[in-house]
């Protein structure tokens, strides 16, 4: 199945999803910067409200059957071009063992007090990785069986991988 077929299939079911276009260099970019690069598989943007249905469809539909969560993470976009609000993107990389196709889903969320439905019931791999995202970015996952810090200790101040994280010097800095 090509990326286009995959996308139209998904769009028939969930009309709110959008395809993220291949990045283009700005018209006045200097030549030494080179052409922007992105992997060739399908990139989808999905609003947070419908992510639960979308994930269920991606996993359970026979024609897509994304049974393997390669990995998930988040990206903090603190500085955005004028006119956009700062956001964080939660990224899911999915793979289907049955059809050997891939798909990337990005879910934009607000930076403060953001909440997102958990996928730990669909892909068990999301269990620890969502905990890691919570640990590093402070994004909460609704319905997660055991949402607590995983790499940092309980009570650690702040969310380390956010772009505005400020390190408080402690005894290890001497």
């Amino acid at each position, binding site marked *: 199945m090509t990326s286009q077929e995959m996308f139209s299939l998904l769009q028939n079911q969930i009309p709110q999803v959008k395809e993220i276009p291949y990045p283009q260099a700005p018209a006045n970019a200097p030549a030494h910067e080179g052409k922007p*690069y992105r992997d060739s598989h399908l990139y989808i943007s999905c609003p947070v409200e419908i992510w639960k249905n979308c994930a269920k469809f991606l996993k359970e539909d026979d024609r897509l059957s994304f049974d393997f969560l390669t990995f998930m993470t988040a990206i903090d976009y603190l500085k955005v071009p004028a006119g956009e609000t700062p956001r964080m993107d939660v990224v899911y990389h999915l793979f289907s*063992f049955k059809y050997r196709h891939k798909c990337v889903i990005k879910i934009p969320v607000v930076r403060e007090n953001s909440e997102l439905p958990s996928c730990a019931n669909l892909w*068990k791999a999301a269990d620890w990785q969502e905990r890691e995202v919570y640990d590093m970015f402070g994004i909460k996952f609704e319905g997660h069986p055991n949402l607590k810090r995983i790499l940092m200790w309980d009570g650690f101040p702040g969310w380390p991988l956010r772009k505005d994280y400020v390190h408080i010097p402690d005894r290890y800095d001497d």
Partner: protein
Amino acid sequence: MTTEIIRLPGQDLSSEEMILNLGPQHPSTHGVLRVVLRMDGEVITGSEPDIGYLHRGTEKLSENRTYPQMLVISDRWDYLSAMSNNLVWCLAVEKLMQLEVPQRGQTLRIIMVELNRIASHLVFFGTYGIDIGAYTPFLYAFREREKILDLFEEVSGARLTYNYIRIGGVMADLPQDWVGKCRSFLEWIKPRFVEYDILLTENPIFKDRTVGVGILTKEKALSYGVTGPNLRGSGVSFDMRKDEPYSGYDKFQFEVPVGKNGDCWDRYWVRIQEMKESVKIIEQALDHLPEGECNAKVPRLIRPPKGEAYAHLEAPRGMLGIYLISDGTEKPYRVHVRPPSFINLAILQEILVGMKVADVIAILGSIDIVLGEVDR
């Protein structure tokens, strides 16, 4: 003298749940892993791995370092197979920069990565024996590993953190006579695999401890995102070298060993077979080592264009990936490492339940984790 039995009030023979703390300073946890085990008598009713003791914040560090500087840090994830870590970082940056590595560079990379795979699996073989209670295999495994480290020392100068594979190629071409030394090592190691089978693989005591223990079903493995020998032990033939060849792996002839039952012995057996396959790959690579340059032309200041790339490869522990986002400057905007050990370790909370406490170490050892990679 008589022994007096003291009965404390309320402490009679009623069974209650017991909490056992395994680690973080236990030698068989292979580093600093703590597992909290809830037990009913000898049977485990719940287990919760507690990680993060070795967390160094690689992903945050990468945002303040240039692309070549990150290579040094990549050595420290899975320190038993630093070559794979170097390679995956280079693959990700090369993808962004749309660079093509010359044939000789690619073949050299494959030789190094496969030698490293043998060294890494040898550590597994040795330490797994110790976990089970057989000390001798460890001495054999480290004798062999020493020879591989000597080979690496000659090409890169280092024995653990090689930093040999660089963006655009490799650090330097092979020293004189290295190919000969490598060949004689391969000839020397082939009969050693027979020794391993006699020592451990077919050893009845070892089989008693591992066959049928810690069964990981195919469905569970896929749902947990398990990759590498653990997934292949469960009967799924999935190897990045075959399924999505990188660095010219498609030109090599080798088999992907697959287990049947998904128990500890199958996971062990897959790794032993993989070493033999790696020997085959290195032999083919040495036979067809192309002449010419080993480095592509790389600008002095590495500043990849805007965009994002995900590169992954088959590390000794599974699918190691780098998700790299560039904003066009000389430092990455965001780096995410997909660490196979971290994701494989998550099955521990399910696979241990219902097992006896004596099997915990056997199961933990068979997953083969490196805590440097789990915590990053």
